[in-house]
């Protein structure tokens, strides 16, 4: 079995068709002076044909895929129409260079320029220019373009890289899967295969050499697996998972646009965890009802100095506006000695997870923290933003942050800067200390959000990354379950909104327990929204309480895990 990057969900079973996208060969011939005008005309005609065809492709694509992807193709017309590039090519032809050579040389220069820039988006444009070059050369040479539209059903396309022009011709009902040698999760190949809803695995080394036309192959777009030459048994197994996948997807799609409710009508909410403003768009697309965890570290990573208030404000405002009035919970900076951010002067520590991090670090660097709090408060005028404090262990931390926020509010009032006067401030509950004093914290917080990943690690005193103690890193230990129960109950007693933003919130084995304890908001990755909503809908409060009682009565995690496995509903 071969491994690649899974970028588009689903299972594909079919026959390989290798799509060669190698450089188009042309003869480099000199043009005599009396034919130069003809050569110029030939070049300009080719550009015109290119634009006409591309425009047609874009229109097709708008219909069959979606307008956003069509824009990638429309961009090709804009690029080739650059008058300065055209005149650069003209100038070469005027010296007696043939159209093919002149165009190829100039476009190669831009490919080189784009790919040498240290910026992913610009590097991706190099793929576009290379696609333009090949198609323009084919037009000049009178070679037909690869016709992907005529591929038979159950074809698995195998190619170095999927180019935008290739995808426009694809008939998605005939294509079972896509495998490429290049590209990651944000590449054209990935975006386009997701838009076409074709299972895809990218970056499988040498795959165009390993597979041959007509070979049988299975691809699993969830795991990133490519299985060449499968046995009958493999095919039967994957046929079954494919059918299950399709059935499950159809079932989950029935939850789009629906409220999240338990079987007996208790209203819950499924939120999303995001790491940058772009994810906010995905969260809305995937039907998230809010943002339960907006990690702000991305603003601070890969930089030479701390982000300005303006930069931060723009990012927070963008997400608030994207969510259009739905709640956005912003977690303030959560860094420590395990991260390498030079300008923050984070010292290497023996125990970074027990060290100077998160709110501890921020309260020790109030100038830096103030900038973030100001930016969040400013952005709160543009939507519904809540502030979440990470790694709280005592009430004093909440009071200090509240004090800072109040002072900023007074300043804003004096300066006439708008903000949400009722902005909620809450704690991320992820330490045993916070769990043990949840009743006290509840009196000083507006909301709780349980971070299960760290809560388990700190409660079980088991390093997440250490394989020898990995068996301890599980939510099914009675200690963890009791802790979660206590946090939710203390929060609810004071009338707080209580959410959960770790992996636990999407675990179908834990969901009945969380319902029974009274959790309000389940924050999951955007792709898990519908699965979580569906799972919640399968439980009534009474059934959930029965399961919770039983689970809490079991003395070992093995029994708990086994029991919860036996009652799972999706």
């Amino acid at each position, binding site marked *: 079995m071969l491994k690649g990057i899974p970028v588009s969900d689903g299972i594909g079973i079919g026959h390989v068709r290798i799509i060669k996208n190698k450089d188009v060969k042309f003869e480099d011939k000199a043009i005599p002076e009396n034919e130069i005008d003809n050569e110029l005309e030939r070049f300009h005609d080719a550009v015109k044909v290119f634009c006409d065809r591309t425009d047609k492709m874009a229109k097709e694509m708008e219909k069959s895929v979606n307008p956003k992807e069509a824009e990638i193709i429309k961009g090709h017309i804009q690029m080739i129409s*650059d008058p300065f590039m055209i005149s650069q090519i003209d100038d070469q032809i005027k010296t007696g260079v043939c159209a093919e050579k002149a165009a190829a040389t100039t476009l190669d220069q831009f490919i080189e320029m784009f790919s040498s*820039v240290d*910026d992913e988006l610009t590097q991706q*444009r190099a793929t576009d220019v290379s696609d333009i070059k090949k198609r323009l050369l084919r037009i000049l040479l009178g070679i037909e373009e690869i016709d992907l539209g005529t591929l038979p059903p159950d074809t698995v396309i195998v190619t170095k890289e999927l180019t935008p022009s290739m995808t426009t011709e694809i008939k998605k009902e005939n294509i079972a899967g896509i495998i490429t040698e290049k590209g990651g999760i944000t590449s054209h190949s990935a975006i386009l295969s997701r838009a076409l809803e074709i299972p895809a695995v990218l970056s499988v080394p040498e795959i165009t050499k390993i597979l041959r036309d007509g070979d049988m192959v299975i691809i699993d777009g969830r795991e990133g697996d490519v299985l060449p030459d499968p046995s009958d048994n493999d095919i039967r197994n994957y046929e079954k998972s494919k059918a299950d996948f399709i059935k499950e997807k159809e079932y989950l799609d029935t939850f789009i646009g629906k409220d999240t409710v338990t079987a007996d009508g208790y209203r819950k909410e499924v939120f999303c965890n995001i790491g940058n403003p772009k994810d906010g768009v995905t969260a809305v697309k995937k039907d998230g009802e809010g943002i339960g965890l907006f990690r702000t570290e991305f603003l601070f990573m890969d930089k030479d100095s701390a982000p300005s208030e303006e*930069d931060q404000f723009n990012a927070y405002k963008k997400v608030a506006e994207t969510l259009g009035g739905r709640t956005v919970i912003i977690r303030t900076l959560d860094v420590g000695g395990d991260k390498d951010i030079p300008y923050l002067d984070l010292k290497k520590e023996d125990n970074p997870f027990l060290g100077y991090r998160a709110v501890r670090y921020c309260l020790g660097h109030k100038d830096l923290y103030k900038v973030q709090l100001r930016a969040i408060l400013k952005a709160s005028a543009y939507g519904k933003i809540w502030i979440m404090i990470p790694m709280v262990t005592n009430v004093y931390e909440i009071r200090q942050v509240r004090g800072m926020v109040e002072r900023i509010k007074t300043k804003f009032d004096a300066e006439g800067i708008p903000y949400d006067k009722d902005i909620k401030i809450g704690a991320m509950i992820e330490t045993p200390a916070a769990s043990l004093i949840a009743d006290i914290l509840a009196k000083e917080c507006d909301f709780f959000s349980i971070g299960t990943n760290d809560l388990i690690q700190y409660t079980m005193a088991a390093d997440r990354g250490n394989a020898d103690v990995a068996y301890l890193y599980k939510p099914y230990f009675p200690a963890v379950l009791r802790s979660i129960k206590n946090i939710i109950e203390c929060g609810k007693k004071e009338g707080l909104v209580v959410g959960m933003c770790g992996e636990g919130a999407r675990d179908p084995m834990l969901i009945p327990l969380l319902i029974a304890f009274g959790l309000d908001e389940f924050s999951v990755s955007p792709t898990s929204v519908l699965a979580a909503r569906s799972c919640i809908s399968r439980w009534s409060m009474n059934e959930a309480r029965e399961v919770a009682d039983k689970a809490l009565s079991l003395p070992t995690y093995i029994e708990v895990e086994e029991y919860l496995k036996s009652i799972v509903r999706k």
Partner: protein
Amino acid sequence: MVSKQLTVSNSQGFHMRPATVFVNAISKYKSDVTIKFNGNDVNAKSLMNLIAACIKFGSNIEVVASGEDEEAALDEAVKLIESGLGEE
């Protein structure tokens, strides 16, 4: 010749879509329009050169216009950049 220094304020900088918006608007002027960035003079009417320049969010640039309608060209260029190049 007229010019103005400013900072790019849209999150994508001069990437494909914003750069296209910019080039299409500026191309209607007769004046030469150049963006000085990182020690290079980038032709503001050339989409390909603009993309290759990789002008990002927060980049400090100088827009220079020179020709018969230079004032109007500079004015529109500055307005476009300050308003975020059509980014939503």
